[in-house]
């Protein structure tokens, strides 16, 4: 049942938090009864969490708290106001605390012990990211394009690891514009770089062509890790 694409998308929307009503209840029911669905939710959390980390934090508008208060505190009269305010405050606090507790419980149950490590590689000249690299626990490094990459037919893309503080990058191998799984043991603070090299890779062991893309390997901190 849950290996149907529809349920996988339901899991994705559940992680996004956009579900409501019957759909949300259905997702919650599946989460507690269907292990395959719970796995799909865990996979989507892994996929979406790195993307959240790429979004710059935004400060809420200065008048937001005032608007929240205006929404949760109805205009009331007489001297029951302070009491009613306190009740509303504790009602809101309880709801918020329950929501946080439920999210934490879901994370603790679902999340894998090791935090994932990802790098988003953008053109050195600036612009939108074109590659995503995911370092797995078993030493696999999966390189995937997020945009179409054009490479001349007589050239290859070569991936390099440059740990923080070092000057000579280490080759991790060549890969096609469609992506590839490579193998690499990577230190935590490592920059990944991509250079354009002759077919088969750099003949010297160091980059010889232009460095096209780069990005830092980031450990995604999950709340319970």
């Amino acid at each position, binding site marked *: 049942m849950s290996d149907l*694409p529809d349920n*996988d*998308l339901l899991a*994705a*929307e559940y992680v*996004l*938090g*956009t*579900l*409501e009503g019957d759909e949300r209840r259905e997702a919650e029911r599946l989460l507690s009864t269907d292990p395959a669905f719970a796995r799909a939710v865990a996979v989507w959390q892994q*996929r979406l969490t790195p993307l959240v980390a790429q979004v710059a934090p935004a400060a809420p508008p200065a008048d937001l708290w005032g608007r929240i208060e205006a929404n949760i505190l109805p205009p009331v009269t007489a001297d029951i106001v302070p009491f009613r305010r306190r009740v509303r405050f504790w009602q809101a606090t309880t709801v918020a605390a329950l929501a946080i507790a439920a999210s934490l419980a879901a994370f603790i149950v679902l999340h894998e012990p090791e935090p994932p490590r990802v790098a988003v590689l953008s053109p050195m000249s600036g612009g939108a990211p074109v590659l*995503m690299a*995911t370092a797995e626990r078993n030493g696999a490094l*999966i390189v*995937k*394009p*997020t945009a179409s990459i054009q490479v001349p037919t007589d050239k290859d893309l070569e991936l390099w690891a440059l740990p923080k503080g070092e000057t000579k990058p280490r080759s991790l191998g060549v890969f096609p514009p469609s992506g590839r*799984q490579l193998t690499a043991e990577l230190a935590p603070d490592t920059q990944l770089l991509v250079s354009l090299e002759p077919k088969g890779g750099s003949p010297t062991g160091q980059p010889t062509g232009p460095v096209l893309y780069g990005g830092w390997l980031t450990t995604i901190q999950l709340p319970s890790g």
Partner: protein
Amino acid sequence: LSHSDLAERMGVPLGTVKSWIRRSLISLRGCLAS
């Protein structure tokens, strides 16, 4: 934000928001599949 929050905020029908999100997720899944 829920589907209907997004629809209201962006001023488009609920069905449109749902299909945008589904299509984006399908494309994201294809792009991140390993």
